[in-house]
């Protein structure tokens, strides 16, 4: 029996149009009160503002690189706000909006991009794993974590504070990686409580979707025997509704689900990238009309749920947050070189110990005889070290 792919054009789950109109969907519903809508709006604006500030900090040399979430705020806030505290998140390197929902101070995110650390937060304090840079690797961690939840009996008990799910974020490009597909195999075979959340921002650096798949990405899931759904990733209400349904399902013990959040990377891949080399500005312009924030603002305004006061207040909050981020970034201490050695192993390791003491002594050799503080900076660029 042949099984050819569905020919019909894929439809998006959408609850809020780009123009800010509420629409209904036969399967997914979300009827937030005005307060919730305002709160979501605030989230969207704040994470965008942090993102803008981080981009600026990078331009000013304070960050080595930055991966902007511009355009993907709704996909991240909608899914992040659907999580319960006991759920666990496995992000890529771009989930600053989800981090926000998990109460990770945005400043903490900058450490990695500033080169001050490799991931500065305590994952278990936020149920938000460290950023994973190797494309796709985290989807297996997420699946394993979900298998752990099953073994803890924290799925399908009906206790809303106990049953937990995992959400794994990844991009459109990531769907090509062996690891991601293996995670689909493991998750489906074990019926693990994991939601695969793919932000299809149309690009993997310079490569468009067609380099990764010839059918809509959400349809990948049906090859593994679990449901896939495409949602308007710029519609925070639809993303919330779909993610909540998927998480509920997983927590009930009904297994994995694949969500494709159809969105757009409005900026460069990272601050190192130059998208003018590979995409036309008309495409970007088109997506501007689908902006996730504008449509929620339109809904709030037109529905009389928020006025200028509110919008101004959010702007001020955003500015304050941006100032906090900037301030804390600038005052972020440089890491201690000893950190290179301190965390390689949990238990003592003689080679690391040897190299660690050698380095401490070596460094001390650069300190001027009469100064207590090492003055390595003074020596940078000179041809002779104090150790000689």
């Amino acid at each position, binding site marked *: 029996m042949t099984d050819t792919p569905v020919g019909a054009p894929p439809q998006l789950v959408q609850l809020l149009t780009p123009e800010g109109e509420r629409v209904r969907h036969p399967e997914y519903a979300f009827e937030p009160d005005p307060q919730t809508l305002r709160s979501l709006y605030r989230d969207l604006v704040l994470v965008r503002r942090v993102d803008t500030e981080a981009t600026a900090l990078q331009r000013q040399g304070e960050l080595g690189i930055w991966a902007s979430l511009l355009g993907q705020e709704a996909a991240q806030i909608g899914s992040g706000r659907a999580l319960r505290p006991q759920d666990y998140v496995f992000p890529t390197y771009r989930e600053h909006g989800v981090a926000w929902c998990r109460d990770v101070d945005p400043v903490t995110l900058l450490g990695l991009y500033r080169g001050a650390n490799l991931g500065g937060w305590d994952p278990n304090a936020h149920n938000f794993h460290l950023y994973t840079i190797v494309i796709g690797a985290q989807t*297996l961690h997420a699946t394993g974590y979900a*298998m752990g939840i099953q073994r803890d009996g924290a799925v399908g008990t009906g206790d809303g504070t106990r049953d937990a799910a995992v959400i794994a974020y990844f991009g459109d490009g990531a769907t090509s990686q062996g690891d991601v597909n293996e*995670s689909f195999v493991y998750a489906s075979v074990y019926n693990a409580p994991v939601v695969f959340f793919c932000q299809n921002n149309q690009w993997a650096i310079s490569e468009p979707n067609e380099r990764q798949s010839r059918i809509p990405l959400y349809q990948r899931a049906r090859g593994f025997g679990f449901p896939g759904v495409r949602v308007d990733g710029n519609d925070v209400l639809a993303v919330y509704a779909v993610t909540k349904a998927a998480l509920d399902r997983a927590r009930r013990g009904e297994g994995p689900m694949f969500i494709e959040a159809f969105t757009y990377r409005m900026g460069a891949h990272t601050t190192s990238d130059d998208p003018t080399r590979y995409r036309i500005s008309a495409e970007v312009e088109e997506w501007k009309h689908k902006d996730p924030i504008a449509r929620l603002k339109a809904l709030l305004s037109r529905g009389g749920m928020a006025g200028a006061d509110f919008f101004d207040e959010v702007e001020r909050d955003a500015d304050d947050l941006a100032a906090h981020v900037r301030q804390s970034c600038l005052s972020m201490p440089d890491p201690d070189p000893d950190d290179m050695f301190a965390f*390689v192993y949990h*238990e003592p390791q003689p080679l690391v110990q040897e190299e660690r003491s050698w380095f401490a002594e070596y460094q001390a050799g650069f300190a001027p005889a009469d100064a207590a503080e090492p003055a390595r900076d003074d020596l940078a660029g000179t041809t002779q070290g104090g150790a000689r």
Partner: protein
Amino acid sequence: MSPTTIAKAINEGLRAALERDPKVLIMGEDVGKLGGVFRVTDGLQKDFGEDRVIDTPLAESGIVGTAIGLALRGYRPVCEIQFDGFIYPAYDQIVSQLAKMANRSRGKIALPVVVRVPFGGGIGAVEHHSESPEAYFAHTAGLRVVSCSNPADAYWMIRQAIAADDPVLFFEPKRRYWEKGDLDAAAGPQLGLHQARVVRPGEHVTVAAYGPMVKTALDAAVAAEPDGTSLEVVDLRTLSPLDLETLEASVERTRRLVVVHEAPVFLGLGAEIAARITERCFYALEAPVLRVGGFHAPYPASRLEDDYLPDLDRVLEAVDRSLAF
């Protein structure tokens, strides 16, 4: 104290770990009903259930990747890689995730994952079933790498590896799985996981080996005796970190060192040992550290493996060369 095989000793060690700590899990291909292709996990799924002794899909990256996730949730997975040559699909997860997570998280995350690898040749197998990939992992910071050579060590070392909060690559000498030795599981371990052992004291040349080659080195020592050559044999046991103190003490006495492993010589463990021991014992050494190992060639068809693998004659040839300096 009762005689047992290496395979059985590891099985006992796994069983003890499963009994003592409900967080310990076994996972891998065919580890359940079959008990693994070498029967090292025999009977464990029957006694501990499918949730703790997990037959995984046929995907090694998935095995290690999900083990990492399970460890993040507080479990202590022991993964079996069916044969040495099938660890490479998991290489990225091992090198970029398993090895680096503790450091990435500044110590906030521990990944107490053990990866068991039956390794080495001599069993007449087809391609990819006889490899010695340990150097690939020893070069990787964040991993611990050990290998056992007898039942008692096998039992204690697997228990110590599981107890360790760092990831451990555990290389099992598959062609010695059925060799017997005494095991007293009531007494504690004699050594820490990262200590080498002088298994035979001697005077003229130190021969350092690990895993399957320890027996070969001991055989060589016996063979050399009638000629009046006294070999000191060191079972390295730990490859990363190395126990250089034990080796150095031996070489300071014998002034000559031969390192033996099945892995190719070029960038094998012997290279690092030669470099470090030469630096530490520069004035003591009467000869350069010599190495006996696999050739710079893929492991050959099994009818050639006796030619490929270091044997007692090859060890003695190197001993003679060392003595000739």
